[in-house]
């Protein structure tokens, strides 16, 4: 940590001792920027997926739908006994029969606005919202089948499970992508540092001859690449965040593709990424420099 801080403060003389290399420097900054940009996008997708999946899972877990058979003759009686059963079930906080206007709105995407719903045998839907602890689903099913023949209780588990599963996969892939990006940065910095060490064999020899220790020489290279990787990543992270602002915004509970971005504590990440990039560069260059210096008298 001290070595890291000393670096930021800097040693201009050590910096001057190694001549600057234009092309490697620009390419390093460029690649660091691109990698930070990609990391931001991957992080945003991963974090947003997690967030949306949590919201969905929570909402779906709390709500269920009861569907009553569409028989006009018995509809009213069934509705009454169903409501009776639900009202006496512990753990249910709210029960509401959908009005025919609401049911019509549900069907509208498929049949258009002119559907004469009153004259059709449409099953009656009842929305059930559980309270914090939830209710005993199997017990409720048993009572319903005894007292409300033909009623079907849908607690949404069937389509909640694969959704949560998919979200957790996206999250795992996202983190894996970020790991790969980190490894790529390390590899790229190592190559660039090796190239510039090799180009400066004579400089290193002279510095050794006048009594420079390895740390002094290594620091000149390490400082350079740490600042380049950090600086490039700052630019890339800013561009990444700007690019996310062009995503259409929507509330998080809506479609997965709406509102990809950072929220609250997530904003730590765009700040952390340049720092991580610099840390990776610090250790990669340091390792490359000491490996190289050991080979030279």
């Amino acid at each position, binding site marked *: 940590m001290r070595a890291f801080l000393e670096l930021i403060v800097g040693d201009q*003389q050590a910096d001057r001792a190694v001549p600057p290399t234009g092309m490697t420097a620009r390419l390093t900054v460029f690649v660091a920027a691109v990698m930070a940009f990609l990391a931001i996008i991957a992080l945003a997708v991963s974090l947003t997926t997690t967030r949306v999946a949590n919201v969905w899972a929570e909402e779906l877990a709390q709500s269920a739908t009861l569907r009553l058979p569409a028989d006009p003759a018995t509809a009213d009686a069934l509705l009454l006994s169903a409501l009776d059963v639900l009202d006496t079930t512990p753990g249910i906080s709210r029960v509401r029969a959908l009005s025919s206007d609401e049911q019509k709105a549900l069907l509208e995407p498929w049949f258009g606005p002119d559907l004469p719903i009153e004259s059709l045998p449409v099953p009656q839907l009842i929305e059930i919202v559980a309270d914090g602890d939830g209710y005993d689903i199997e017990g409720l099913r048993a009572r319903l089948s005894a007292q409300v023949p033909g009623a079907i209780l849908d607690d949404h588990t069937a389509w909640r499970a694969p959704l949560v599963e998919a979200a957790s996969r996206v999250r795992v892939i996202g983190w894996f992508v970020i790991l790969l990006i980190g490894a790529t940065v390390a590899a790229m910095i190592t190559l660039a540092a090796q190239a510039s060490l090799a180009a400066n064999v004579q*400089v290193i020899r002279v510095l050794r*001859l*006048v009594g420079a*220790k390895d740390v002094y020489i290594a620091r000149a290279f390490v400082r350079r690449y740490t600042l380049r990787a950090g600086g490039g990543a700052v630019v890339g992270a800013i561009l990444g965040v700007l690019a996310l602002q062009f995503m259409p915004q929507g509330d998080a509970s809506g479609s997965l593709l709406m509102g990809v971005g950072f929220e609250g504590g997530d904003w730590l990440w765009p700040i952390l990424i340049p720092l991580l990039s610099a840390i990776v560069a610090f250790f990669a260059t340091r390792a490359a420099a000491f490996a190289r*210096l050991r080979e030279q008298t």
Partner: protein
Amino acid sequence: MIELDKVSYGYGGTALFSQLSLTLAPGSFHFLTGPSGAGKTTLLRLCYADLRATAGKVRIFGQDAASLDRDAVAMSRRRIGVVHQDCQFLDHLSIAENIALPLTVSGREQEVSGNLQELLNWVGLGPQANQLPPQLSGGERQRAALARAVIVSPEIIIADEPTGNVDWEMSQRLLSLLVELNKMGKTILIATHDLAMIRSMKADVSARVLRLKDGQLMQAGSEL
């Protein structure tokens, strides 16, 4: 200060010299002569741990050179000022910065301002201070190399052909600087083929003159 004890060295299997012994006592002054290719530069490089002896022992400040780690080598080089035959400058830094380099790499930047200007004037490079090494003549570079070797006021000064490219007057001046330093107690070792220069110095300093030829190190005599 530096001791070679039955040292052998060779490049790629063929021995350049073997069983060679030499002791540089504190305050001593040695000239090393010999034909080109005899191994003078090689012998000097053994003295500042730039090369490792293939056999025998090199002791630098009492420590076995073979047992020094890289940091210890750096530390002992800070106590030895070296004028390299090929100067060894950083071509992207000015002459002044090159001369100050031994101080800057050892964290003694604050001493630069005091010594540098005086030293530049001494070797007659005041006007060239801000030029780059490739812009200087061979003799000017050698003078700068000598200035760099002495800026840390080292205990030992090793110079490899320090007067190879300079005129008689300048070589006399550079040598008298070394004689001066020797009188202050510094240990000096100079490799040169310039016998005339050695002869001219003999009156001022009690120097031993050694001759390296065919892998043998001998006291020089008759040819002087």
